């Protein structure tokens, strides 16, 4: 949010295609009803909108002509799910991906759990079979997508500005930009956050939650929504275990307590320990995605 006036003018969601270097603005779902702040030229302006909404002249033209309870109100039924629009776009994404036999994995974790390092390593280990495409979500910077590009995968960076999660529309735009190949695996690296991304379906086939041994064993208990939404939980940075008091047994028990259906793997994205299991899991899921797509 703009520190001066609290407006959202400079918190637009931007997408950058690392291959072409082109940046475009994305309208997040729910932003259409807002007033003005349309930047037709696409520039991230420096407050040339002049804050004139600060100078409303306090003459109270709106006049308090309606006292509480006064005047007739008309009830309008809506009966709509708040996230219906996001979920509709997510379904379209899922159908688009399904038809192209693309496996989409939504990678979520707290900041610093090792999502990007895991992806760098995974891109190398997969060696192009299947091809990897990445949509990177961060509030700001293209640092992560630069790392992914260096690791050899086409990547689109989405900067959410004030936003704390990716939504289905951002992923739709990322797909349109990246055009992942038939039979590929698409990783969506969500904004580092164990709360908000749990609520927003992106059209992925599975959520994969990372949590590192440098965090607490009770992470699953503290963030049950996210862990309950996960199909696979990767406990990362296992190479640090000898240096920490972290109890792996307790962490695994906590995952099972919150989500008895989740599969767990203990890995180190840095040393590669445990990664063959993860790579096999991806390849098996890609195979399933291709099977499901058959006519």
């Amino acid at each position, binding site marked *: 949010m703009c520190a001066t006036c609290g407006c959202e003018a400079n918190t637009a969601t931007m997408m950058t295609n690392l291959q072409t270097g082109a940046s475009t603005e994305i309208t997040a779902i*729910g932003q259409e009803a807002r007033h003005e702040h349309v930047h037709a030229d696409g520039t991230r302006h420096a407050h040339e909108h002049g804050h004139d909404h600060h100078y409303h002249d306090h003459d109270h033209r709106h006049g308090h002509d309606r006292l509480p309870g006064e005047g007739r109100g*008309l*009830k309008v039924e*809506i009966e*709509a799910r708040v996230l219906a*629009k996001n979920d509709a776009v997510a379904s379209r994404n899922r159908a688009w991906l399904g038809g192209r036999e693309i496996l989409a994995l939504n990678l979520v974790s707290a900041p610093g759990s090792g999502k990007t390092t895991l992806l760098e390593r995974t891109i190398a280990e997969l060696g192009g079979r299947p091809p990897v495409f990445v949509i990177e979500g961060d509030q700001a910077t293209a640092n992560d997508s630069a790392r992914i590009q260096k690791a050899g995968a086409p990547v689109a960076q989405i900067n959410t500005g004030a936003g704390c*999660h990716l939504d289905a529309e951002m992923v739709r735009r990322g797909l349109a930009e990246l055009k992942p190949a038939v039979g590929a695996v698409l990783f969506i690296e969500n904004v580092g956050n164990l709360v908000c991304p749990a609520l927003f379906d992106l059209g992925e086939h599975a959520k994969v939650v990372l949590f590192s041994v440098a965090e607490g064993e009770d992470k699953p208990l503290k963030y049950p929504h996210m862990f309950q939404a996960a199909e696979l939980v990767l406990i990362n940075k296992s190479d640090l275990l000898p240096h920490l008091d972290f109890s792996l047994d307790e962490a695994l028990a906590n995952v099972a307590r919150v989500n008895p259906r989740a599969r767990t793997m203990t890995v180190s994205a840095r040393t590669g320990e445990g990664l063959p299991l993860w790579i096999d899991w991806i390849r098996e899921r890609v195979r399933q995605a291709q099977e499901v797509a058959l006519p």
Partner: protein
Amino acid sequence: MHELSIASNIVELVAAAAAGRKVRRVTLEIGQLSGVSAEALAFCFPEAARGTDAENADLDVVEIEGVARCEACGEEFATASLLAICSCGSFRLQRVKGDELNVKGIEVEEPA
């Protein structure tokens, strides 16, 4: 702070239904297990509604009780916690109710 984004989604639904009429009241249903905080939403709503037909509208929140079904013994019971345990000792539970996040309706000013 996904509540700001949730609030923006609500305002969009409300503005479409209001069709240019001033909105006085917005009624929401929020389940106890939905992961959305009614307080945080009430805090964000005025910001999301600013400059729309829903500006200054009152927010009414109907809380929906969470209900879980035990996969082990089949019992259904009310709970506001995602970490509930059935009286039989099992924590293999399915959410039956409490995920709701709905805009129920609005009250608009009738044009004079």
